[in-house]
């Protein structure tokens, strides 16, 4: 029998009896797979991870990791998994190395083994130079990499990454992507990650589930999802200020038109290259001038837009909220 790495069945979490954060979520993840939970702020990604990692008890439903139930067999599950939470969890007053040893202690790893592992992981995460510096002095990217190292100290078979690249710059982000790919290739670790960066999900994940308002809206491989949307997206800008939604809508092959606040139009259509001249011609005949036009093949953004009816909210917003929260905490501590 093939054992799934992660199984979630009708997983539900209610807070305070009325807020449904996760609503009947079911999915299965094969061993060695990278599975992505993609969704906007407040979609319920972290809450789902919290239940899978035994930190929160599900209100309803069940889940298991490598066959072990997350409620009944919590301590076994905790030994098999590694968790890299969304927030920074390292102790700021300790050094990076001390933090890793502490993580090892929490898993009951003998000190001589954990020291070796810690040095290995610090090397992998390129933190060796800073290993004896207090975490307080680390940059965001360094801290994220330290968290990753902590999550790996027990050589987990299933790794949970909650927004592993949140708030990082482009270079650091791609470095972390490389680590994640390496983990999968070299150790065959099963990874469940959450993100609200589309390109991240697209390039890393074998399969994706889009989650919104606590529900899984759709799931599949990135290719499947993109194909299911099945259309190209065209962006048009015209010189005139009038609303020409109707004119565009009436053209054959055009599926959907969406007018943006800045006056540009997002047009969904089949076979964009062929239809584009028709649209330009049609608008000209009505006295409007196209000044800009671009065609893009479907991306996960479109998938998201299609299945949830709205664009994924600006990800920078979430990042700033987290940063400001951190600053508040630091101040409060003084």
């Amino acid at each position, binding site marked *: 029998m093939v054992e799934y790495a992660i199984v979630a069945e009708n997983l539900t979490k209610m807070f305070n009896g009325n807020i449904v954060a996760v609503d009947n979520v079911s999915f299965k993840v094969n061993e060695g797979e990278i599975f992505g939970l993609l969704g906007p702020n407040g979609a319920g990604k972290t809450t789902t991870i919290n239940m899978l990692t035994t930190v929160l008890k599900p209100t309803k439903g069940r889940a298991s990791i490598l066959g072990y139930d997350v409620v009944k067999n919590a301590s076994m599950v*905790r030994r098999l998994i590694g968790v890299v939470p969304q927030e920074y969890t390292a102790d700021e007053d300790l050094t990076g190395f001390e933090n890793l040893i502490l993580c*090892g202690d929490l898993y*009951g790893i003998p000190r001589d083994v954990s020291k070796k592992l810690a040095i290995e992981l610090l090397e992998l995460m390129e933190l060796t130079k800073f290993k004896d510096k207090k975490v307080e002095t680390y940059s965001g990217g360094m801290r994220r990499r330290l968290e990753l190292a902590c999550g790996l100290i027990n050589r987990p078979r299933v790794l949970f990454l909650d927004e592993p690249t949140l708030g990082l710059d482009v270079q650091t982000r791609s470095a972390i992507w490389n680590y994640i790919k390496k983990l999968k290739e070299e150790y065959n670790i099963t990874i469940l990650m959450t993100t609200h960066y589309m390109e991240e999900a697209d390039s890393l994940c074998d399969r994706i589930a889009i989650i919104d308002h606590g529900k899984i809206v759709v799931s599949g491989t990135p290719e499947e999802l993109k194909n299911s949307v099945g259309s190209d997206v065209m962006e048009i800008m015209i010189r005139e200020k009038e609303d020409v939604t109707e004119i565009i809508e009436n053209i054959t092959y055009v599926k959907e038109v969406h007018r943006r606040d800045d006056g540009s139009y997002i047009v969904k259509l089949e076979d964009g290259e062929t239809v584009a001249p028709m649209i330009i011609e049609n608008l000209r005949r009505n006295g409007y001038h196209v000044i800009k036009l671009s065609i893009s093949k479907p991306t996960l953004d479109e998938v998201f837009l299609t299945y949830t009816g709205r664009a994924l909210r600006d990800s920078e917003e979430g990042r700033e909220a987290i940063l400001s929260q951190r600053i508040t*905490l630091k101040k409060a501590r003084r």
Partner: protein
Amino acid sequence: MNIEIYDRSVFKAMLQGFWGLTSRELKKWMKEPIILFMAIIQPIMWMVLFGKSMNIGAIFSSSTITNMIIPDIKIPGYLLNPPVDGVVTIPGSVASEIVRNMLSGISSKAVESVFGVSDYFSYLAVGMISMITIFTSTFSGMSIVWDRRLGFLYKVLSTPVPRTAIILSKMFNAAIRSIFQSTIILLLAIFLGIKFSPTFSLMSLVAIYIAIFLFSAGLSSLFLAFALRSTRHETQMAIVNLFTMPLMFTSNAFFPTTLMPEWLQGIARVNPVSYITDALRQLTIYQINYEILLTDFIYLTAFATILSTIGIVLSWKYLTK
């Protein structure tokens, strides 16, 4: 992969988790000596201001009598036994000296009968050991709240380390800090002239540490239990403030319970602070009364056992995200 190599006995793994968490707290503490300094400054102020500067003995004597000027006393020689010739003169200064000595003897007797020792400083200094232990133990709950807010607790909760180990590590940390700070207070008290009783020995010191450990374990468990679900350090702070002063003043830490009104004595009799303070005084400045000391220790052991059990059991249920 090979998780088997870490598949050690549950107990060993727990012990390691416990030790990891405890040494983390101790490391943090040692890296920030200012915390230690702030903690001991208040007891030191009490010792110096109230124990040293104020002459409590004076309350029990009449200054008007001791300052009275006594004229020279002339006693006819024949009144004495054996009789002598002439008149014997006792200078007034000598007479007043005798009276003063007599009275101050009475006042120190009075201090002794009330406080059990002849100087208030020694009495108060030992009370300060209780005080520092109360401060340190009640604050243990704060660190759980901080761990929660800073995300550290979240990580710990997703690892296999037993919840019991989390609570025990905080409890131990409070106890170790209390013992260390008490030692500083004790050394300072020696420097300032605490008068140990003849029964004080090295064994007393061991017993002192055990007593402090028991008291701190019990009290910190109580405040850790309050903090299990708390996310606001303000709330925790309020709880600490609500408890510490009443705990101190309804006990014998500053003054003997015999000076208290009846109802307050009733509270003092169940207040654990009275028991730790009495145990410490028995072991340092009193002539040890083993029967009383035993009662103190039985009480403290029960206090520590019951409260830490409650704390641990509650943590299984309530120490969650």
